[in-house]
């Protein structure tokens, strides 16, 4: 293999990106999609065979947000062995930050016509905006908060958990508890986030109507861009020496400690970065689906994210993106055709993947197969044989 990192000494980023075949394909697809989809949606007439309807643009945009969320989970689970079953919480917090901005944008166009207070507050007979809603009338502030709040929560949570050396299944359980606690908190009306209805009835973003085709296409492009950027950041982390330390922690944590690394700091770093990415995904998601409510904190949703990653292929980053698309497309399909079967399908899919595709769908593609050169078929054969003997 050509050593690109030598060839591109001046631009290391280009060097390691070129070595990452799956990443190059992903970025190429994202670039192509962010050019073609808006063209097909906005410029082609509805009668054209290539016309992409707005609902599909938004659906794809939503998948992109899920893909970013899956990427953030793969970064910690695939590369550092931190199985977070609470990442939905960071996603939802990012979503709420964006939702708060969108609520303030409604201004006096709400049902009650109050220029400062969102409808649900008027309904609760509140007279003043709570202090934590200050600043959310500014877009930049909401964006910063969409990253800062999940990041801060992850930092504090991670600091306590990693310092006490909570690992494995115990960590997974407390992440579930975290998102469940937030679910209960956000359900309460007096929290000031709209209770169980959440935030909705958004009108516009930066002055552009959320209903317009142009805004939808713009949000789609933004989702592509942020997924691409976060992918590059995540790949940058994983290919660095820090990334190697993370993998070492995943495989032999105590060895890393006895080698002199402060494992808790490394975990804290990557956990926080991952939460920030989940927050960005949430912020992009809310304007495209038009609502954020406490349901996003549901523990089951956080578990689903892990399934996306497992299906796509853990520890590859692009596999997580693929997995998010596959499972969510299947979900859209099933909930349309036979909604009752979705959960059975999801469970079955998870079991099938664990048994037959331990490296996920990506691991089954020979070109992306494992570094050990084990092909998909030989893997299946091995497993079947092992099962036969057992």
């Amino acid at each position: 293999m050509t050593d690109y990192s030598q060839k591109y000494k001046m631009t290391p980023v280009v060097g390691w990106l070129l070595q990452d075949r799956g990443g190059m394909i992903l970025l190429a697809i994202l670039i192509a999609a962010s050019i073609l989809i808006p063209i097909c949606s906005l410029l082609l007439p509805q009668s054209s065979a290539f016309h992409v309807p707005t609902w599909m643009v938004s659906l794809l945009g939503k998948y992109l947000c899920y893909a970013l969320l899956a990427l953030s989970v793969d970064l910690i689970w695939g590369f550092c062995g931190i199985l977070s079953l609470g990442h939905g919480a960071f996603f939802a917090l990012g979503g709420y930050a964006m939702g708060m901005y969108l609520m303030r944008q409604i201004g006096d166009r709400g049902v009650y016509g109050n220029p400062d207070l969102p409808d649900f507050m008027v309904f609760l007979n509140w007279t003043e905006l709570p202090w934590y809603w200050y600043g959310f009338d500014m877009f930049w502030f909401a964006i910063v908060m969409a990253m800062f709040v999940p990041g801060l929560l992850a930092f504090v949570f991670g600091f306590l958990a990693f310092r006490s050396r909570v690992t494995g299944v115990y960590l997974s359980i407390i992440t579930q508890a975290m998102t469940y606690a937030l679910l209960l908190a956000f359900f309460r009306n007096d929290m000031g986030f709209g209770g169980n209805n959440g935030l909705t009835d958004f009108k516009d973003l930066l002055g552009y109507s959320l209903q317009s085709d142009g805004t939808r296409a713009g949000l789609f492009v933004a989702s592509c861009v942020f997924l691409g950027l976060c992918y590059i950041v995540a790949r940058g982390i994983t290919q660095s020496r820090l990334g190697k330390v993370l993998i070492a922690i995943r495989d032999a944590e105590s060895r890393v400690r006895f080698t002199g690394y402060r494992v808790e700091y490394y975990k804290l770093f990557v956990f926080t970065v991952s939460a920030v990415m989940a927050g960005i995904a949430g912020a992009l998601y809310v304007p495209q689906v038009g609502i954020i409510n406490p349901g996003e904190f549901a523990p089951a949703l956080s578990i689903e994210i892990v399934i996306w990653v497992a299906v796509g292929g853990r520890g590859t980053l692009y596999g997580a993106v693929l997995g998010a698309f596959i499972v969510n497309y299947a979900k859209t399909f099933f909930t349309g055709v036979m909604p009752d079967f979705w959960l059975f399908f999801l469970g079955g899919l998870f079991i099938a993947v664990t048994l037959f595709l331990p490296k996920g769908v990506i691991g089954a593609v020979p070109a992306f197969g494992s570094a050990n050169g084990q092909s998909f078929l030989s893997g299946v054969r091995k497993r079947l044989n092992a099962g036969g003997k057992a």
Partner: protein
Amino acid sequence: MSNVIANAPSNADTMTLEKEGAENGPAVMADAQRKSNRSETILYVDGVSVTFDGFRALNNLSFYVEPGELRAIIGPNGAGKTTMMDIITGKTRPDTGDVLFKSETDLTKMDEADIANLGIGRKFQKPTVFESHTVFDNLLLACSGGRGVFNALFHRLSGAEKARIDKTLTTIMLDDKRDEMAANLSHGQKQWLEIGMLLMQEPELLLVDEPVAGMTDSETEETAKLLRAIAKEYSVVVVEHDMEFVRDLDCKVTVLHEGSVLAEGRLDHVQKDPRVIEVYLGR
């Protein structure tokens, strides 16, 4: 030494001490011996006891390692050898006792990472390397130098580091496995790789737990050679069951039994000790 002098009793006191010394002379002698030991040791373990759920794994364990020394520790299964290493490297805290590095640093207050960075490297009983990294990357990760998160994020391999890794690869006889995944190494090669990782840390003291377990005879011989070479530059403590190997090391031996030192000296010497024969060698 200064400690000893400062605490030295005046002449008059010495007289009385000497009189009493008729009775408890050996105790006083041992105490003085201990103090002087402490002032020139790289590792000073004194009166260490640990209890796990009522079971005394270490019982008033004391021993000292001099700078540059190669020391072998033997003892039957469950004697407390690994627990002793756990204490020294900060994995387990002792209930009582002192553990000092270079006669001054109290290791019982520090954690694993601090102790590692202080200059104490440890090889586990079960060989532990980073399986999904190449041999080269295993050594790179162990390479001494910035252990900070951001240091690691922006780290770029320097020529000096590369040279050191290559040198270590030769030392541990894994030159041709440079780009091999550590998972694909044989058991013995993993042991060597782990020793190589310790060397990359540039420690002053190496603690090596059962380095030849599961090795072929020729590998065992090579390993003895390797450790003897390493012992020329570093202080090394080796735990091992294999008597041939310990004989090959040709060094002072400490026999542990039920958490304390049973005998100490040359291998021929301890092998003649009837108590040692009874609990260990005679079986």
